[in-house]
């Protein structure tokens, strides 16, 4: 589930950080067409579906073809004593990344929206940097910079892990910031804050009772996407010698194709689940407003 490169979200200008494009309204009405003309979209979509579903079918098939029995691959995979620790590490990393990212982004986004709106372009530019610096270049740079004395931050497994989590948080900035900023913009945070202040509310009240409830959705969106990204990230984890899910999987793919197939399906389902949740959640909110 590694992101191959720039992820669409931040650059498409979509609210839900790149999770999915939702058909918002009825959309532009499709023009009346001849009967044949009406078929083209279906044909194109059918082609697309064939292309996208076939690899999944192949994987399903392979996962069931272990020579020791249909479900052997799944049994081996789920019983693999290395997978669960790797999975666990990835999950912990994901949660930690979300935490770090939120702690930095949410106050910053609020601050910028409220007090320094002219700084927005600069911040947005910085959040574009993860797209300009490919993962493999970033990990090269991080290792060279932080493993040399006097910094020596990568001397232990866990200290490297911390650096990696920080790197992941930086990689999540485009989505997190875009999501939270959009959320703040949609509630017109300046007016809301000023209204609350004019009614006598203090800062803690404003933040907890006025701002936070209204951007819960945006935060959730950004968090889910970040989680999916971290869970599937290979390049940085690999070169930092971290035993997370993706490097483990890369190993399996090479040596144990059947189990790899099973794991792939699990990975795909988890991605679908978390991103599907983003769509569902943002769709419900869209209808509320």
């Amino acid at each position: 589930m590694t992101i191959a490169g720039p992820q669409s979200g931040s650059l498409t200008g979509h609210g839900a950080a790149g999770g999915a494009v939702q058909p918002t309204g009825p959309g532009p009405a499709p023009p009346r067409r001849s009967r044949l003309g009406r078929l083209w979209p279906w044909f194109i979509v059918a082609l697309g579906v064939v292309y996208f579903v076939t690899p999944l079918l192949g994987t399903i098939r392979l996962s069931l073809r272990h020579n020791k029995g249909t479900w052997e691959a799944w049994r081996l995979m789920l019983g693999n004593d290395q997978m669960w620790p790797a999975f666990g590490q990835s999950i912990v990393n994901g949660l930690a990344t979300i935490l770090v990212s939120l702690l930095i982004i949410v106050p910053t986004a609020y601050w910028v929206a409220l007090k320094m709106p002219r700084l927005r372009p600069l911040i947005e530019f910085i959040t574009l940097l993860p797209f300009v610096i490919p993962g493999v270049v970033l990990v090269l740079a991080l290792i060279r910079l932080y493993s040399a004395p006097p910094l020596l931050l990568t001397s232990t497994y866990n200290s490297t892990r911390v650096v990696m989590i920080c790197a992941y948080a930086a990689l999540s900035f485009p989505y997190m910031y875009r999501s939270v900023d959009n959320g703040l913009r949609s509630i017109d945070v300046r007016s809301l804050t000023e209204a609350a202040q004019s009614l006598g509310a203090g800062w803690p009240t404003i933040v907890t009772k006025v701002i936070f409830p209204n951007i819960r959705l945006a935060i959730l969106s950004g968090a889910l996407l970040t989680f999916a990204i971290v869970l599937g990230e290979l390049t940085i984890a690999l070169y930092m010698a971290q035993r997370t899910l993706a490097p483990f999987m890369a190993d399996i793919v090479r040596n144990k194709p059947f189990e790899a197939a099973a794991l792939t399906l699990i990975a795909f389902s988890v991605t679908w689940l978390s991103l599907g949740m983003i769509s569902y959640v943002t769709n419900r909110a869209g209808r509320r407003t």
Partner: protein
Amino acid sequence: MSVAEPVRKNMGGAKRPPFRFRWNWLGVMPFLLFAGALLILPTIVLGARSLTGPDGATTFENYGNMATPVVIDSFRLSIKISLITALVGGMFGFLLAWSMVLGGLPRPVRSLLSTFSGVASNFAGVPLAAAFIATVGRVGLFTILLKAAGFDIYKVGFDLYSFIGISVVYLYFQFPLMVLVITPSIEGLKKEWREASENLGASTYQYWRHIALPVLMPSILGAMILLFGNAFGAHATAFALTGGNLRLATILIGQQISGDVLQNPGLGYAVAMGMVAVMAVSIGIYSILQRRSERWLA
């Protein structure tokens, strides 16, 4: 905290005389420091080291040394794959997006398709490679089925572990990325333009040829360039698929991390900076084109 002296800089292009330190900047410090430490500083250091020769002096020779076959071949391969997947991904992705927005498909179908686009654009790296190996690898499902029908795709030149194979795999996330990026622009086509053109007697072909496509062209070009960058910077999928056998630019850099395959650390840094340059240019062009297209389509 001390109060700083006036700094003679123009921030963000605003035409103001020397700005004074404001406490406001404190609020964005955590962000700036974090991004600085993890994104900006490493890149700068990388750049600095790429300009350092083996003796420690500042020099451009690393960049000159990039003209070796190893580096040139890897860049050529990466560019080839990126171009093809950007073009094919862009064209078919556009058709998909058109079908979804203007194709008159029922609501649930569109919803499902767009959720899937979001998922598929993230489905890269190891699972994607595994899925394709399982399907069109040498003993993949599809390969075997076709062989049984008498058609051996590997004999006709297809090879999952070659540049063709990688391109096919990359399309799996290029198509959805194109859909995600171009859909807002297609949605931005005013329905009145279509009606006005119909009213004036234009056929569907004429509408697309004279109005819709010209208006969409900046967005489409920008999106394709984004796709190019996306493929160029991709590492995980190729790695999971071929290990180190197919030497893309990103794979080369990865190998440089694990061991000095280029026999010259400075060269490695130069290659890395070269990649950053390519990415920066492509993202830059994309941003410019996007801003232009927003003028007509926002």
